[in-house]
């Protein structure tokens, strides 16, 4: 089975400006030493931000963010790395000037886009293409010491950077101009696209009441209660936690912890909680004796310290500890949560953990016992999502029907509503009532991350299912699957359901439905066209061979064959995209009455 996938990555391309002149100034050995130190700095910086230095080309360094695994903030990681590289080179230059009397001037381009990448499990070969070319061209037109961002990258990091638009340019071999932005500043500790936590909470009364009830009912036989809020990316977990924290804050002390992206640091989370506790109580975080060492090597000391902190606080009133993004956690942090739940001796403590469903796929034991009460956060209904759209857009900004249109597109996911609106309202004349345009890049990135976490087998099955359709049955996928995979197909489908990517579909026997249309689309788009064509042919063959095929299958067979033909024709170069018409009507045209 193919394991190449199309995926969105961010590419950082850096080159040393004026290196020829440098070569004249320095003897070859000194030059080599200077460049080696620069390459070391570049490699270290990129690695720290999660990038992979793909290659050194002459004096140029190309780093890729998104292989072997994509992160939803790859673009921001790339931009932060590019910015830090610029600063580190400035430091390096102090040394080089002192030692060799020279300085390096680095130009950098950052671009985000689709690439074809090989199997993540086999060291992932990587095909550059347009995304890399544009990054290289951005680098080429950047001034010495400058970082230029491509448009797609800028869109994904807009709230974390200050930029200055530069004149669009036409890269070699292209016809359309490319927009570029000179990076002036990167704000630390900020998300690429700020979440709108200011919008009113819509459609979550029941969930909020459940949480408040748990807080007020207290113990229930236990000193410390745990509730796990589970939901898809963007469904509103963080928003719900904030709303609950606000209400609970009137009668309890609320501490807000968030699992860091690398998941490793239980100590970091405890540090966050302790700092807030200190701020809230006005007492320094010195319960016990120096347990709050963030680099504590003794896990027991950390656990005990965290428990004593909570117990101390609980003696003067109820305590709520919120832990967001728990799906990012590694085992020590999950152990800590379980430990707090079981070992806290003081009554009146409520732990509220929020996580994407993948938490359960990674740590199946979490449901069995540890999770406590589980609150499933479902997508909003269409009316609620439309109401949210109206709030987010602001008064009078959405014409009639537009809110519903956005809500239907988002299928009830508040983050998708937010991102789509943001993209639409940035346009001078949003196409309400028409095609709403491309999937917002931030939404695309979220969906990509979900697919990227799958095992190779799960991913294969999901892709096969995407060929069968948004709704697919077990047998259709089996017919598409290579024989070696068929015996395990049921298990893999159920694993995908456990992850929440697909769910049982009641309208048809043994059928599943993709949770969201965008997941199906993303899985489908990730299949190289040649493979898509072959899979469609197989799907058509199977339907056509069924003995008692219902009449509507003819239509489906035709659709599969049509898709197959289309992809092959595209590959054979027979289907270039249509040209954009140069003509337009000259404003209002006089309409003549029909003859």
């Amino acid at each position, binding site marked *: 089975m193919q394991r190449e996938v199309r995926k969105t990555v961010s590419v950082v391309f850096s080159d040393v400006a004026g290196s020829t002149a440098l070569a004249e100034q320095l003897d070859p050995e000194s030059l080599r030493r200077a460049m080696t130190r620069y390459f070391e700095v570049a490699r270290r910086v990129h690695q720290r931000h999660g990038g992979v230095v793909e290659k050194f080309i002459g004096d140029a360094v190309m780093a890729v963010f998104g292989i072997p695994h994509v992160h939803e903030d790859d673009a921001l990681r790339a931009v932060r790395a590019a910015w830090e590289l610029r600063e580190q080179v400035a430091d390096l230059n102090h040394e080089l000037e002192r030692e060799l009397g020279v300085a390096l001037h680095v130009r950098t381009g950052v671009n985000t886009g689709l690439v074809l990448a090989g199997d993540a499990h086999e060291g992932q070969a990587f095909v550059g293409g347009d995304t890399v070319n544009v990054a290289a061209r951005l680098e080429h037109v950047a001034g010495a010491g400058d970082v230029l961002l491509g448009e797609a990258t800028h869109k994904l990091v807009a709230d974390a950077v200050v930029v200055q638009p530069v004149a669009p340019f036409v890269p070699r071999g292209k016809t359309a101009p490319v927009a570029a932005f000179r990076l002036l500043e990167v704000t630390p500790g900020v998300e690429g696209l700020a979440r709108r936590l200011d919008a009113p909470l819509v459609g979550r009364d029941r969930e909020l009441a459940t949480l408040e009830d748990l807080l007020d009912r207290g113990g229930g036989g236990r000193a410390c209660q745990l509730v796990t809020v589970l939901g898809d990316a963007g469904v509103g977990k963080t928003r719900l936690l904030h709303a609950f924290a606000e209400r609970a804050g009137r009668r309890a002390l609320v501490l807000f912890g968030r699992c860091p992206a690398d998941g490793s640091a239980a100590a970091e989370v405890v540090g966050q909680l302790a700092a807030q506790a200190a701020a809230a109580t006005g007492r320094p975080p010195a319960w016990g004796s120096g347990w709050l060492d963030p680099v504590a090597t003794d896990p027991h000391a950390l656990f005990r310290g965290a428990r004593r902190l909570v117990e101390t606080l609980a003696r003067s009133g109820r305590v709520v500890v919120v832990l967001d993004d728990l799906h990012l956690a590694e085992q020590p942090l999950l152990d800590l949560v379980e430990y707090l739940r079981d070992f806290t001796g003081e009554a009146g403590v409520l732990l509220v953990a929020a996580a994407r469903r993948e938490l359960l796929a990674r740590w199946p034991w979490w449901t069995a016992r540890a999770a406590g009460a589980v609150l499933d956060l479902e997508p909003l209904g269409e009316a609620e999502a439309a109401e949210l759209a109206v709030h987010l857009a602001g008064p009078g900004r959405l014409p009639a029907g537009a809110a519903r249109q956005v809500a239907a597109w988002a299928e009830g996911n508040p983050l998708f509503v937010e991102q789509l609106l943001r993209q639409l309202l940035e346009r001078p004349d949003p196409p309400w009532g*028409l095609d709403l345009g491309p999937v917002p890049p931030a939404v695309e990135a979220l969906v990509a991350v979900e697919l990227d976490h799958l095992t190779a087998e799960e991913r294969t099955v999901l892709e096969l299912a995407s060929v069968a359709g948004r709704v697919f049955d077990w047998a259709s996928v089996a017919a598409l699957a290579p024989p070696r995979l068929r015996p395990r197909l049921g298990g893999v489908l159920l694993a995908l359901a456990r992850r929440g990517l697909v769910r049982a579909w009641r309208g048809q026997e043994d059928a599943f439905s993709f949770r969201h249309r965008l997941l199906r689309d993303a899985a489908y788009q990730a299949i190289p066209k040649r493979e898509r064509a072959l899979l469609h042919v197989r799907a058509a063959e199977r339907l056509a061979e069924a003995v008692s095929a219902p009449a509507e299958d003819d239509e489906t067979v035709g659709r599969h064959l049509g898709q197959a033909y289309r992809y092959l024709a595209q590959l054979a170069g027979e289907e270039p995209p249509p040209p954009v018409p140069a003509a337009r*009507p000259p404003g209002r045209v006089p309409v003549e009455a029909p003859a």
Partner: protein
Amino acid sequence: MGASIDVRDLALAAAAGDPRGWDGLVERFGGLVWSTTRAYGLSPDDGADAAQTTWLRLAEQLGRLQDQYGQLGVWLAATARRESLRLLGAARAAEPLTQKEPSPPPSSGRDALLWRVVRELPEHCRRLLRVLLTTPPPSHEEVSAALDLPVDGIAAARAACFQEFRHRMATISIRTEVEDS
């Protein structure tokens, strides 16, 4: 989402000078116009010229076409066909078309086989499928106008061409199955 909007509304908006109406028409029928010109075997450059001319004609005549606003796809397909034939020249148009496209990149193995399946399909099938498989899918009336075929015969022609395509793909599919296992 685009396919659910009434063409008449788009045409009225375009005639009223609303650029979204025009853009909506281009989005809806850009593929049909383009695939029609391509179906007549024009080179990519000539095809682009024919497509551009077709849109120019629409921009010029939009005000006079009011009674056809509901059927603008048919009008565009017929115009694209006419512009394509005009470019080809009356003499050439009467002859069976020969492909005048650049050679494909050299490929081997399964890719080469797949490529051949497409290239060796009978010309009338490639022409039909090219127009039929446009996004969004054209109506039979539009296909009929684009290819000058009777509306009633399109379903049967489509079935025959898919049958032909399936037959040619079968051998390759079997190979794939073997490769995968």
